[in-house]
């Protein structure tokens, strides 16, 4: 039961870890992707506005007015109103006029959040450089303090062969052509990326804290959840142990009394029947006893498993012959294992007893060692349908074809308990008419 609780905690913890990993990954991927999309949206907007941020109109010098290619479009608002706003952005030569910006519904509209919001545009750090056919660079707009205008031109020149992407880690650029001039716009997305990195750090730290907290939570829930089951299991074992104990003495006394009657009056049908029923009950009580024995601390010794299996099987060969069951063994020599001697002998005897009862004509046993694991395998032909039959290890479980054999449903449950007590695993399945019971130690 302790193992079931640990399994519950482990599985719950793994589920939480998996869900957290998926959720946080999605959040972070979206966060970084959206930072890139926002930047692309802005550079695209600038490209549509011939190198200027939407909503700003530069006050042109006469030289610039002559240059039709570099002239930004004059925008008017829907209602024809015009607002003036003069800004000096890091020594830029342009005085920008704030014009009406169409409400950007998705990003919150006027005064809201997002790449099209007016205040966001004010705080945008970018530059646009235009190149003519002779590769002469002209600064169209410059709103950046990390580099000088000359450095910005050199930077733009190095990007002219690309189309769009990241440069210098946190700068997004776009290369586009208007008329015969090629424009390069570079936007600083450092602040937005830093937000994404902060989300990443919060995700990692928060995720770790959640995992630790959930471990304690599941530990607590596991204890609460399994306590009644453990209690029921303990009470069941106590009940069986008490039942066994309470039955022992009366059975022995009935045996003695019946024997006395037979000595005095001779054997008759009644005494024969009593003896038969008492023997049946005695066998059942002894099987009850086997279950409680599993819980007792056993003396574990290093056992020659190969020798023991050979001995037990060879001793049982006569019984197989009597039932006309062909027995075959494949025992790898020199396999040793530390286990309670009584437990492993009992396991073997129960397996053999099971095989003797339910084999049609063939039974085989194998013992193999692979790395540190030892595998004991019992196979016998059966008329059961293919599938998993792990329920045969549950107490008092008797399969349909076993009902007539008089099995109590306790023998294999002892095997399961004994295997588990030795940190092993046991399984039963039918494949192509062969019942396979596998024990991994």
């Amino acid at each position, binding site marked *: 039961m302790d193992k079931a609780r640990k399994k519950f905690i482990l599985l719950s913890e793994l589920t939480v870890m998996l869900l957290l990993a998926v959720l946080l990954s999605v959040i972070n991927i979206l966060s970084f992707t959206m930072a890139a999309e926002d930047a692309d949206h802005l550079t695209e907007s600038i490209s549509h506005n011939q190198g200027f941020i939407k909503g700003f109109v530069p006050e042109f010098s006469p030289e610039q007015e002559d240059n039709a290619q570099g002239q930004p479009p004059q925008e008017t608002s829907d209602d024809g109103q015009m607002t003036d706003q003069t800004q000096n952005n890091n020594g830029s030569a342009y005085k920008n006029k704030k014009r009406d910006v169409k409400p950007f519904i998705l990003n919150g509209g006027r005064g809201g959040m997002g790449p099209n919001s007016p205040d966001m545009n004010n705080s945008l750090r970018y530059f646009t450089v235009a190149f003519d056919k002779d590769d002469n660079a002209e600064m169209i707009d410059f709103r950046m303090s990390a580099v000088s205008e000359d450095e910005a031109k050199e930077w733009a020149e190095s990007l002219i062969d690309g189309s769009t992407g990241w440069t210098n880690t946190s700068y997004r650029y776009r290369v586009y052509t208007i008329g015969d001039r090629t424009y390069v716009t570079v936007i600083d997305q450092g602040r937005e990326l830093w937000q994404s990195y902060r989300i990443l750090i919060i995700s990692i730290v928060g995720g770790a804290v959640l995992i630790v907290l959930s471990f304690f939570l599941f530990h607590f829930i596991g204890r609460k959840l399994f306590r009644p089951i453990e209690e029921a299991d303990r009470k069941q074992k106590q009940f069986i142990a008490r039942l066994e104990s309470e039955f022992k*003495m009366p059975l022995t*006394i009935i045996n*003695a009394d019946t024997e006395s009657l037979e*000595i005095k009056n001779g054997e008759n049908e009644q005494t024969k029947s009593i003896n038969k029923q008492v023997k049946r009950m*005695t066998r059942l009580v002894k099987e009850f006893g086997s279950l409680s024995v599993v819980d007792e601390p*056993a003396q574990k010794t290093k056992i020659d498993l190969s*020798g023991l299996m*050979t001995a037990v099987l060879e001793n049982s060969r006569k019984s197989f012959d009597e039932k006309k069951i062909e027995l075959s063994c494949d025992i790898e020599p020199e396999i040793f294992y530390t286990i309670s001697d009584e437990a492993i002998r009992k396991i073997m005897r129960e397996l053999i007893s099971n095989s003797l009862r339910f084999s049609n004509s063939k039974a085989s046993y194998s013992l193999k060692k692979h790395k540190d694991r030892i595998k004991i395998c019992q196979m016998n032909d059966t008329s059961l349908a293919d599938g998993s039959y792990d329920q045969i290890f549950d107490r008092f479980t008797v399969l349909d074809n076993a009902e007539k054999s008089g099995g109590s449903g306790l023998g294999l449950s002892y095997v399961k308990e004994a295997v588990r007590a030795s940190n092993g695993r046991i399984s039963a399945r039918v494949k192509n008419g062969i019942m396979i019971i596998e024990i991994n130690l």
Partner: protein
Amino acid sequence: MKLLLADPDRDFLEAFKILLTLSDYSVKTAFDGTQVIQKLHEERFDALIVNSDIPRISASEIIKKCREMNIPTVIVSDRKINSAILTHGMIGNAYLQLPFLPYELTSAVRGVIENSNSKEILRYEDTSIDAGSFSLCDTLPVTCDEINVYRSLIKKEPLDFKTYDPYITSLNYKFEKLKKLTRIKYLINEGYRLVTIKNG
């Protein structure tokens, strides 16, 4: 043959007193440890059958007393016979686990009495069992069943594996404890045999 039957369950005492009497034994009964000691001092018994959970005076003390008086003992217990009990538990001369069949008790009684009266010394290589004193190499106590297993092995008689399973383990443990080279091993085509292992 005079037997002392000691058990806290009076129904058990009654039933087995009748049965053993019918089997030609003279039986006295006691239902606690004080009565057992008292009756042991009053008269000489050929064997004592005692429940391991007898009240007032522990079964271990009673067995110790019987050993001093050379009275063989049969312990009746509801605890399972296993090698741990045989090697570390209270050592009587025979051990019966409840529930048992009447013939198991009578044959155990017969076995302990016969052994205690015999002068038989069983020997194999570096080990020996004195059947009369129920001792292995004059050092460790052995039960009647362990003597029977050892005797059968010397005579190379087939062993009933299911019955003698714990005794094979306990004997091997005792050989090892005494640092003897004798062991009981299963040999293919021969069955269980006494063998001498290589030193070291």
